[in-house]
């Protein structure tokens, strides 16, 4: 066998097995991201350009870009994303308070309340993947808490079925209800007893009740009557479950610390709004604290009212608690979706970003006893990861994805929006924004500034403080899209009609930063050709065409200066007449609308022609009526049956085919002379000459004849089946006014439309001229006709520099930057620009436009100012073609054609990092 074939086959098999391997393990991949915060004790992060290897839902490795990354796993690359561990909420409202009545009971398991099959994506959207469930805060010993995760296989969601004994100190747990034992049936040995009161009624009773219950649970292993509440308590106590003390008051915290140390139990505090007062005691007892932040975001909170004892959490306390093992949580009233934002506010209380991030990930995981599974990104732990659009605790960051055990558990629906942040945003020569941002929405720039909106779901590109953002570059005259076709383009055609999705050559140009090309035919028609402004990236015509007619292109380089006026005038005169007819129409229409609005007569001044219906003919009329007949022979393979209505007026008659229905406008026109008639069938847009008719009336109500067209002939015969006159609409004819007097528009002349736009000042004329006399002639014509011009290749332009500068007429110098003259190399762009003439760069090529930025760089190297060069590539070209409302600038409403450089584009060391065209990134 061919060894090469063998190699190919074995490579294919290997690839197949790799693919199969990957497909079999959806929880295995490599995640590459801009920043990774492992939040482990050893490495809080961030790791720039980090990666996380996930295999079978577990983290295998984490680190900075590494050549030893496994090759068998698919790579998910998110260069703009930030990765943090799934957040751990040590307080939640997903369970409890339970509905049991016992003041002290360990029988209530919060895990029971957890709906494993529920869809928690709304909470996942906030980045929370692990939560603690509490049996409640309404009983002294409410039961046993649990730790669960919010996604993944339903039966694997519970991380700890029982994680703690939940004790509540404070008023909330006082005065529990009385217990009524229902006995069915009551008997002498099972008597009905009165309702049994329970402790605690106040602070005094709470520890006595606790001690009492625990002691009796431990002492009386064999009670006479089984009591599940004490039995489970004894069991949990013996298992050494930590005690979770939900407490706010300083006095209660103190008592709890004393109790726990006396009982020799480990535990932790939750709440702690007055913890700052006893911070040293807590530290001495080495108790962890879960501090609950009041997260009131969605609407203002309720009033405290006159209650002087109302607890008031204070973020400033966090600074005094900083030396504790401190986790952050929200109150049960809060929405878990807002957990990250609540923790971000801890920074206001003096916690730094790293401590605050650890306080919602690693530390609560440690406190809840699940740190071996979740809470940080370390090898061996579950791959519970949150992908953010920006820094972990920034207001404008959003969760874009959540992975739970390596599986995508939540993905925010992305909007067609992006925010580009960079150190410098170039708005124009000597106009920049430092540390600014651009919001792109629906392909347009929506906002520019130092603080722009960051809508959730937007892609956020943080290019860094050194980055330099400019508008996409414009090739002032190229031929992209003509594919080497050097034939001249008729004046009525625009390149825009054949534009489709961008291809390879366009991609080459776009990659280089040239986002728009003003594309002209290689040789324009003598009467002027259209040039189109085309984007170099886009998926369809609408997204690619900036303007189908950006200018009219005349090549007058070979015309003597004396002949220039003569070449241009006839065209301009025709255009003027055409433009005037339209102007008149618009004026008439305006007048008519004004009149109509004023309620004046809407009758036409004169009855419109051919609008009347025919009068009924005399009874002896041999033609008028409905004829049923058939056409056969000639080129017609099968006889066609049909019906025709005819209407005689004088000696001419007119008719229509009514059956079968004819989809186009048509008219039968014929002249009757005696018994014979001749005529034709007029068909709109038939593409062939009108068929002719010849026939005769052979007897009453019967006719025969032939229809001929292009040398073919067919016979027809018909019989009149109805003699009543018929009304039909007049043929569609361009009338000057319709029935209600509304003016009708002039006929559209595609060839004159560009000239009309030129006359009306909507587009310029790009005129290829060389010598100073030619330039002068063109400038004279432009002045006389008040049209805008752009001079192409105007090698002699410097002679008229002041005139050009005054009139703000742009010049597109030849593609070569330097021109050899007798006095040495001449840099025309630099010379003109310094004299105040707007200049631009042209490629005069197709995908050769990709080198335009390097040409500009050389122009700068030869003396052109860097900012002028930038302007010549962007805003100045856009202004020449009057496209500056769409391209060439970074401003609200403009197309989002944006280039991100690592520095000023004209600095030698700057590289083009990313290209956005119409808000979409061009693949590098």
């Amino acid at each position: 066998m061919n060894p090469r074939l063998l190699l190919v086959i074995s490579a294919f098999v290997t690839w197949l097995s790799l693919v199969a391997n990957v497909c079999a393990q959806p929880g295995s991949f490599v995640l590459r991201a801009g920043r990774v915060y492992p939040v482990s004790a050893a490495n809080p992060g961030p790791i720039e350009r980090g990666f996380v290897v996930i295999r079978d839902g577990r983290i295998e490795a984490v680190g900075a870009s590494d050549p030893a990354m496994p090759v068998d796993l698919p790579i998910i690359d998110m260069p703009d994303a930030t990765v943090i561990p799934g957040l751990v909420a040590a307080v939640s409202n997903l369970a409890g308070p339970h509905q049991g009545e016992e003041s002290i009971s360990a029988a209530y398991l919060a895990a029971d309340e957890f709906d494993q099959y529920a869809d928690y994506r709304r909470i996942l959207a906030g980045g929370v993947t692990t939560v603690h469930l509490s049996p409640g805060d309404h009983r002294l010993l409410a039961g046993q808490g649990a730790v669960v995760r919010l996604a993944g296989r339903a039966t694997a969601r519970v991380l700890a079925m029982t994680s703690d004994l939940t004790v509540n100190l404070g008023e909330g747990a006082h005065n529990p209800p009385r217990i009524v034992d229902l006995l069915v049936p009551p008997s002498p040995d099972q008597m009905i007893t009165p309702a049994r009161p329970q402790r605690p009624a106040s602070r005094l009773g709470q520890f006595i009740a606790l001690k009492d219950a625990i002691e009796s649970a431990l002492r009386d292993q064999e009670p006479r009557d089984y009591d599940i509440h004490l039995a489970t308590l004894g069991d949990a106590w013996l298992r050494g479950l930590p005690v979770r003390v939900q407490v706010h008051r300083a006095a209660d915290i103190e008592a709890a610390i004393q109790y726990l140390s006396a009982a020799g139990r480990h535990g932790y505090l939750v709440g702690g709004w007055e913890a700052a007062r006893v911070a040293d005691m807590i530290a001495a007892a080495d108790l962890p604290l879960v501090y609950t932040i009041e997260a009131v975001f969605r609407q203002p909170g309720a009033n405290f009212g006159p209650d002087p004892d109302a607890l008031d959490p204070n973020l400033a306390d966090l600074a005094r608690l900083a030396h504790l093992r401190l986790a952050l949580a929200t109150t049960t009233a809060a929405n878990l979706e807002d957990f990250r934002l609540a923790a971000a506010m801890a920074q206001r209380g003096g916690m730094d970003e790293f401590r605050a991030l650890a306080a919602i990930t690693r530390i609560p995981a440690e406190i809840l006893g699940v740190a071996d599974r979740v809470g940080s990104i370390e090898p061996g732990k579950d791959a519970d990861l949150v992908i953010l659009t920006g820094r972990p605790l920034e207001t404008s960051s959003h969760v874009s994805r959540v992975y739970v055990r390596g599986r995508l558990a939540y993905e925010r629906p992305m909007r067609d929006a992006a925010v580009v942040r960079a150190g410098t945003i170039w708005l124009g020569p000597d106009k920049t924004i430092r540390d600014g941002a651009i919001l792109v929405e629906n392909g347009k720039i929506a906002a520019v500034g130092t603080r722009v909106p960051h809508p959730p779901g937007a892609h956020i590109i943080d290019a860094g403080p050194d980055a330099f953002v400019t508008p996409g570059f414009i090739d002032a005259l190229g031929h992209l899209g003509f594919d080497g076709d050097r034939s001249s383009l008729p004046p009525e055609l625009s390149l825009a009609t054949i534009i489709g999705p961008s291809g390879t050559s366009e991609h080459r140009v776009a990659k280089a930063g040239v986002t728009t090309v003003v594309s002209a035919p290689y040789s324009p028609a003598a009467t002027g050709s259209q040039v189109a402004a085309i984007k170099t990236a886009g998926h369809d015509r609408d997204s690619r065409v900036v303007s189908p007619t950006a200018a009219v292109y005349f090549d007058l380089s070979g015309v003597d200066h004396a002949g220039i006026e003569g070449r241009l005038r006839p065209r301009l005169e025709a255009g003027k007449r055409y433009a005037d007819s339209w102007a008149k129409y618009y004026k008439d229409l305006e007048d008519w609308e004004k009149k109509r609005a004023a309620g004046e007569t809407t009758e036409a001044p004169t009855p419109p022609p051919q609008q009347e219906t025919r009068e009924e003919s005399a009874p002896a009329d041999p033609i008028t009526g409905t004829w049923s007949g058939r056409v056969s022979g000639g080129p017609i393979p099968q006889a066609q049956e049909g019906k025709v209505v005819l209407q005689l007026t004088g000696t001419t008659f007119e008719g229509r085919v009514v059956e079968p229905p004819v989809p186009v406008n048509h008219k039968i026109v014929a002249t009757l002379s005696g018994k014979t008639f001749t005529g034709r069938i007029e068909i709109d847009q038939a593409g062939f000459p009108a068929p002719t008719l010849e026939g005769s009336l052979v007897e009453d109500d019967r006719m025969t004849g032939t229809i001929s067209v292009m040398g073919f002939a067919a016979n027809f015969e018909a019989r009149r089946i109805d003699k009543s006159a018929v009304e039909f609409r007049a043929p569609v004819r361009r009338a000057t006014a319709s029935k209600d007097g509304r003016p009708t528009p002039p006929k559209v002349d595609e060839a004159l439309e560009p000239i009309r736009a030129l006359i009306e000042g909507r587009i310029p004329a790009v005129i290829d001229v060389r010598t100073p006399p030619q330039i002068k002639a063109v400038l004279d014509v432009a002045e006389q006709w008040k049209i805008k011009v752009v001079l192409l290749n105007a090698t002699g332009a410097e002679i008229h520099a002041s005139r050009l500068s005054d009139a703000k007429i742009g010049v597109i110098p030849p593609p070569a930057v330097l021109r050899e003259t007798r006095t040495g190399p001449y840099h025309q762009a630099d010379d003109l620009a310094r004299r105040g003439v707007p200049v631009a760069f042209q490629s005069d090529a197709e995908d050769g436009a990709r080198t335009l930025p390097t040409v500009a760089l050389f122009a700068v190297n030869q003396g052109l100012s860097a900012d002028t060069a930038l302007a010549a590539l962007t805003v100045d070209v856009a202004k020449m073609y009057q496209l500056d409302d769409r391209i060439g600038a970074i401003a609200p409403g403009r197309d989002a054609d944006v280039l991100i450089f690592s520095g000023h584009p004209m600095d030698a060391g700057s590289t083009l990092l990313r290209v956005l065209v119409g808000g979409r990134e061009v693949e590098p």
Partner: protein
Amino acid sequence: MRYVLVSCMIGLGIGAVSTANVAAAGDGPWSSPPAKVALVGARIIPVSGPEIASGTVLIEHGIITAVGRDVRIPFDAMEVDLEGKVIFPGMIDPHSARGLDVPNENLPVAPFLDVYDALDPSRLFFEDSLRDGVTTIHVIQANNLVIGGLSRAVRPIGLTVDEMTIHPQIGLKLSTTPRSGYDRMRQMASLRETFDELAHYESRLAERKYEESLRDKPIDVGPAEARERGKALVKDEDYDDRHLNLMRLKRGDLSAWIYAGRATDVGPAIALAEQQGFLDKTVLVLGPESFKAHAEIKRAGVPVVLDESLYFRDRDPITREIVEVFVPSVMYANGIVFALQTHPSGSMAERYLNYQAALCVRNGVPRQTALEAITLTPARMIGLEDRLGSIEPGKAGNLVVFSGDPLDFNSWVEYVYIDGILAYDRAKDHRLQRLLDLSRATSPQAPKPADNSEPKPEGNAEPANAPAESSRPTTRPQRQGGQP
């Protein structure tokens, strides 16, 4: 013996009990129904085997003795010609509280109750069941409880509960879905408490029995040993009412019907059954959403009774789109044995078991599975598959005669035979006649005697020259007024 009793009651025409309206009313002198009935000429769907295009079912003394194309009909058998009809096993409602006066007791834990005390034979529900072709109803408490009382299987005919009863003790109802006023934590605590307390009670009972067995001798062993020795001494009657049924549940005498109304309740239900050792006698009663736990159900291998709403509609929390799932398809795809139940509201199409089965077929469940879900599967669930659920020799003569295919909703129930007795005849269903105004329309076809070859004009004067009553009890004319 049973049919004699029933037919006597019917014959007496006592009271306005529903069955009297529906069942073939005799007008004396007492004519005991024939001991042998041969239903001939119908298409037979035995469910347990292949269909018979045209065959005979022979019922002797209430028991099916022969089914097939060529069955030798004994000379003394009443022959009923059912040509063009379809014979289907009497359908089984696997789970219904509608025979009870109220669906639930307000005591959360009440294993000492028995539906016997609350079954009301005069409920129109039973009449409706008969009309819809249901011949066996498993009457069990509804879902709003922690632990309920004994359930029983009944026929929809009979004047007393005893007459109706097929089996007096099927199982106990439990629920892992919180009853009203409870949350899951309290529900589960209650369930655990009940079984933990049972274990505690049993050990103390054993200890006491051992002490009693020693008479006046001093106790010679420690309490643990005493309990071990006492275990053998405990008899059923030593248990008190609160614990007896629970003990029988654990021992396997009763089946456990555990309601898991949400998917998350399925796991705890299976865990409870596993811990207490009655998983093999467990039937899960599911809510509409519970199918999401199909993996757990499949692993446990327990049969399920589906919620009466077979479609589950869920709204995506993010996109707000509604996703629709047809639950039996999920069950079938996962190989889970399921039974269908009737809708508690009598005005819905879902009240018909055959409609429910037809819905399944429409949504891609194989016909055989769908048919079993209303016959054999529920029979197995209530442990009576040796007597009910299919047309096989040895099983009870519970048959439904449809006018066409049972899954065609244009067919209706013509006759219902329960233990070989014609328990329902559409032509004599007064309520239906009045409702549909059938008297003015063409009368429904009555079964023709096999020997009557000539098709008779339907309706009016037909009974005058009817053959001997002994052979044609089903076509006996019904007097207006009915009372002797």
